[in-house]
């Protein structure tokens, strides 16, 4: 079994139970364990009993902020456990006017990064019984004994180059901050793709996108996708056809990414949610990179007060096309 880190779960539970049981919040959005030790799923806690199930381990990847969209219809005040990305997601929703700050209490969880089950399995090279963690290392319990690995090598893609593991907004910070990170390889794949010829790049994307099922998990998991009706479903005009043609694949994915311009918080939930592993985050990161280059550094979700780059302009802005 994975080390449950009883101590930290207790600390989280302690922090929230007073508010939940004392009526300061009506609902707590947290995580509980799923069927497997490597799955932690959303928990909607309203009672002490619910809180018993609370989990805080290396598999709490699900971004909980998005649930506020629905749950705030039924609750006056909600507590949410937020990692760095969840907090940025909250700011995103705040900026999109989807939530009000005073409706929510944020319990900040500085995040060490979440582990990727597939990487663990790969590392184990066979049946994996469980893991224990200590000091940035992961010990894999495999049938033949134990195997040790660097934790950083086993992170989810979305966590690998996370720059802001600490919540940018919170009411209460439950652990000591991790500190801002470099994320040196954040744009590595983007840059590699940029190096390719247009033909190669098109081929790359055509192949990757060909797997798309149009399940819209990327959209549903995304904190910037908060439209009531997505362009995909609109009838007049019919922006997006339902066919699985390459042309329709590009339409959906380019527009999805474009709609995140200056809005994507780089949480990577889109990519994590994708059942066929399309590298969606690279499209988002391309836009982040370009916006930063063209219109100055902007990290969506870090500061809800800062105007998103597509909602403002400067008369002397540069352009990606000739202005002569």
């Amino acid at each position, binding site marked *: 079994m994975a080390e449950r880190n009883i101590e930290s779960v207790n600390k989280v539970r302690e922090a929230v139970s007073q508010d939940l049981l004392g009526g300061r919040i009506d609902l707590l959005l947290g995580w509980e364990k799923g069927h497997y030790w490597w799955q932690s799923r959303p928990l909607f806690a309203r009672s002490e009993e619910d809180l018993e199930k609370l989990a805080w381990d290396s598999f709490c990847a699900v971004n909980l902020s998005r649930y506020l969209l629905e749950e705030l*219809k039924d609750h006056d005040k909600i507590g949410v456990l937020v990692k760095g990305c969840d907090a940025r997601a909250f700011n995103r929703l705040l900026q*999109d*006017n*989807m939530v009000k700050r005073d409706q929510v209490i944020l319990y900040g969880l500085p995040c060490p990064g979440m582990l990727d089950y597939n990487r663990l399995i790969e590392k184990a090279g066979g049946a994996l019984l469980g893991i224990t963690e200590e000091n940035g290392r992961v010990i894999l319990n495999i049938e033949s004994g134990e195997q040790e690995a660097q934790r950083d090598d086993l992170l989810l893609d979305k966590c690998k180059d996370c720059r802001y593991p600490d919540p940018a907004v919170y009411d209460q910070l439950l652990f000591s901050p991790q500190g801002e990170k470099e994320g040196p390889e954040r744009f590595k794949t983007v840059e590699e793709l940029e190096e390719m010829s247009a033909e190669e790049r098109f081929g790359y994307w055509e192949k990757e996108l060909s797997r798309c099922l149009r399940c819209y998990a990327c959209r549903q998991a995304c904190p910037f996708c*908060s*439209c*009531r*009706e*997505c*362009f995909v479903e*609109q009838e*007049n*005009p019919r*922006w997006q056809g339902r066919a699985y043609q390459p042309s329709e694949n590009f339409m959906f994915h380019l527009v999805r990414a474009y*709609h995140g311009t200056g809005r994507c918080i780089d949480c990577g939930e889109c990519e994590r949610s994708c059942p066929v592993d399309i590298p969606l985050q690279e499209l988002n990161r391309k836009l982040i990179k370009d916006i930063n280059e063209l219109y100055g550094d902007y990290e969506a979700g870090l500061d809800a007060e800062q*105007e*998103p780059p*597509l*909602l*403002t302009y400067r*008369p002397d802005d540069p352009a990606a096309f000739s202005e002569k």
Partner: protein
Amino acid sequence: MPRTGVFICHCGSNIAGTVDIDKTVEASRNFPGVVHADEYRYLCSEMGQDIITKAIKENDLDRVVVGTCSPRMHENTFRKAAAEAGLNPYLLEVANIREHCSWVHKDMEEATPKAIALLRAAAAKAALNEALEAPRLDVEKRALVIGGGIAGIQAALDIAEAGYVVDIVEKDPSIGGRMAQLEKTFPTLDCSACILTPKMVEAAQHPNINLLTYSEVDEVKGFVGQFDVKIKQKARYVDPVKCTGCGICWEKCPSKASSEFEMGLAKRKSIYVPFAQAVPMVPVIDRDSCLYFRKGRCQICEQECPPQAIDYEQQDEIIERRYGAIVVATGFDQLDPTIYGEYGYGQHPDILTGLEFERIFNASGPTGGKVVKLSDGKPPKKVVFIQCIGSRDKARGMNYCSKICCMYTAKQAILLKEKVPDAKSYVFYIDVRTGGKGYEEFQRRAAEEYDVAYMRGQVGKIFPEDDHLVVRGIDSLTNRNIEIKADMVVLAAATVARADAPEVGRLVGINSDSYHFFNEAHPKLKPVETHTAGIFIAGACQAPKDIPETVSQASAAAVKAIGLLSKEKLQGEACTAEVIQSECSGCLNCEAICPYTAITPVEIEERYKDGVLKRTVAEVNPALCQGCGSCAVTCRSGSINLKGFSNDQIMAEVDAICLQR
């Protein structure tokens, strides 16, 4: 399915010469929804319009497509024709098969298929057109003039004379502007103050004019006919009603500050009027230098003021008013030549700008009208004028010509000779530009009768040596180096936009060129209009100008404003944005980007489970919306759309155009 009629114009041979009309008509018949197609030699003629109206009635058409010249030309003509037949005019679409087709393509083989494609797109769009109604808007019969210089004064007087109330907002304590700072005006050499002050007084006394001096525009909302403006009237600390303008206060005031009016060449008191003929003759207290405000003691002015007009407790006041039209006449600044180190400006008291020199001539100026060097009080015997400081200087400054320098330099050289008969003037110039009535003659006089030496060339360095200034330059005609030992140097610094012009532009919603001069709507045909309806520009805020040009432009702007104010109602924009509130998620990104503050949040109620849920969505004020459609692009879910250029209309055009390759 719509019932569309297509009408194609030959425009004599203008279209028919390059577009096969028969083929085009035939092709049009096969477009979806087209039930009638026809052609005519001149569709815009009475006869042509009749053909359309008749066909609409006879064939029960509910959409019309005309293949004609540019919609910018005759869209309205045809819309009226459609309206005559009882059709909503917005159900008509124009396919531009002249300017965008027959005139730019060489033969029928090229132009005909393209004309068909454009018509097909227009028909596809028309099928989705909806009947639209342009809102009828009220006009507030009051004008605002921003800037109380000669342009503003003239515009205000003209508007007031036509019977409309005008407010002049001037940020300085007195109206008068730059013209008040001038000594004499070219080419007639009449005294600037003598011709200006009567106008200032006339403006002050005009029953239809309100002067709001020492005031600034804080906010402009609304739209043509109904601009809601907030004006900040800065605290003067003097009650203008009580004040008699007797002058005792500024006489007695013990503290001094540099005089803005005198370009910093002289001091003024902390309580002051900027100049002797100021209108209104009500002083202001400059908080920054006033002893009372700085240190809490003094209060001499308060003690001395006979009518007890001093009021230290006065606060800035916000005046909110609605105006039908706005004239922007904010004037210009002079470039600070410090940036050009080689001229040594700021390093030596005898290196002056043109405007500073202007004050030296003035009887009420820093030298009492005596033309002397500021360094030693002696009259200058050799004065070097250098033209184009910052103007026509691609590398370092502005590309444009400041327009007035050649003339005022000639004027100053003449005046110098008159005041200091043994003085000698040298003018370094690039070109001498004297377009204007009597200008060339005036400049020739300076050169020929007043012994002004014009030298085509550039000055490379100015530095003091002993008791004079060494001016080193090159005569570009002879390519010789020149060195002049001058007593004084006058720099014709460029005429530049006011430092706060970008801010003013943003406030009132007009745009400017790269030098921050405000843009006219059309350089030839709409020289005083801006792209924002109801806002007009006059004077040097648009581009460098001399006084006569400024005054004529001001009157022109006034006429435009008067024309607007005289209307009972204005026709608003029909193609405005519209929110589908049930789909709107209320992110309000549209509100953030709307240039007209036409979008506001509104709370709606929706059924949810067994109860009702309140939520915020966007709402468009169609009177404010000008129909740019940027909101429709910002809205990711397409919940806000632009009537007349809706998402499905544009997509239908794309589809149709791509069908016909």
